[in-house]
């Protein structure tokens, strides 16, 4: 029994300790409709994804652009995935993430974007650390 409690405690501690370090790096989106490269970084205790490149056929964002754009900010780890926790509040006060990231391999993330509460799934591939 003690052993089981210890294991549970360890799992709990491990879960709480997820700070997004495993996500840090540069990722390329695999999508038929747009191309994008994001740099997931930690800044001021916030895990955020800076847009390095984005091209949806008409809108193009390049590194040399003056403005900085972010695909998400303030990711939090919960229920085996990272979710965008900053802007999920709705009228009903339910937490509803805009984006959820699940690391399925050290170099692959399954990303789910929620648009009007409907999921749009993507795969992001790490292109460097």
């Amino acid at each position, binding site marked *: 029994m003690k052993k089981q409690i210890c294991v549970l405690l360890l799992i709990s501690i491990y879960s709480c300790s997820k700070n997004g370090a495993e996500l840090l790096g540069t990722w390329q989106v695999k999508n*038929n*409709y*747009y191309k994008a490269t994001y740099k997931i970084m930690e800044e001021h205790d916030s895990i955020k994804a800076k*847009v390095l490149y*984005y091209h*949806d*056929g*008409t*809108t193009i*964002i390049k590194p040399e652009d003056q*403005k*900085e*754009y*972010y*695909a*998400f*900010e303030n990711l939090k780890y919960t229920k085996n995935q990272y979710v*965008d926790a900053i*802007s*999920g509040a*709705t*009228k009903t006060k339910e937490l*509803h993430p*805009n*984006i959820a990231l699940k690391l399925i391999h050290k170099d692959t993330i399954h990303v789910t*974007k*929620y*648009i*009007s*509460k*409907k*999921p*749009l799934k993507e795969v992001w591939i790490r292109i460097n650390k």
Partner: protein
Amino acid sequence: MKKTIKFLSLSAVLSVFLISCTTEDVRNISGPREEVTPPPKTTEVIPVDINVDGFDFMEKMQGHWVGSNLVINDEFPFFAWDYRAISPSHTFGIHEGGSAGNLLTSFFVTNFKGKRTIMARNGGLLNGIYRSSYFVLDKVENRENGRYYRLVDAIGGDGIMYMELRFPNHTDSLYYNAYTSGLGNRLPNRHMTFKSKRMHTELAETAAIETGYPQNTVDTDLDFANGFNKDYLYVKDGLTEPNSATFLAVQETNNIFDLAPLSGDPYIITDHPRLGYLQVNIDRGIIPDHQNLLLFLSRDPFTDANGYFTSNLDAYKTALHFPILSVEENQFLMTYMHPDTYYITVVADMDGDFAISEGDITHPQQMLTIAPLGQEEITIENISIQN
């Protein structure tokens, strides 16, 4: 024959630009770096003077644009917009979704804010909501990767919603994207991503010849030199002034002839030159009432004289309209129809995959011609050939 070509359910597409009053702050590309997402703001609208640059858009936009579409989070492997002239300075395209409703965007030459420019009229009818929004050309650029045009909400500017179109150099391609904010609920983000090739060019060429298109002239009913009547513009809850050039009307029924005048829209269905109507009646025969029906209007026939799907795969790319009729719906009025000759095919979607596939039931080919401003009717029967 399995899944010869994918025509998926398009009801979701009808939500393009729809006034979805959700408050979720969905950030695809989240905008300029901010710790807290700023509330969306209207921006100044400065029309492009097409007497200087940009009139060529009217020439470029014509065509049967065939490709694929991502609408919010629904992917449509086959999608098409059929843009043809309906006057010397007005080109029109519609997606008829069927029972769910429709979505149109037309482009026309007009006067606005002291400039000769181009506007888009975008909207449609969905589940009893009639919406019509006006956009104005505010950017024309020669880019390394093609000719680029942007049209923004004629009142709210790019802070409310906008559309971008790019025609890559030396190709027959079009990238056509829309960005919306739910009329100001969030920062505008990508709503529709349509990429396509211009095909079957004779369709638009014929219309251009018949109308003398394109000309830098203004149709009488489409002159916005004096702007919009503010008494009729939609004012969002919580605002005292309209933040968008949008006209809305809501009614339980999907009757456009009632809703359009109610909305205060300065240009409604009955004002369109050339466009006609087609009443489609379907005798289901052996097809159960609970079976969804796919309706196709195409340049080329989808079935042979015996009613079997054609093996000519190119024929399926000539689909001009591809609505879906709900369960138990046996009559449908196609509106805003370009005058032309169409093959009309009803497919009983037996496996419910919203695609033409093995096992679906069809009928021998049927053809019909719609004259300019024509009001035609056709009855499809003998839907009995299982593929």
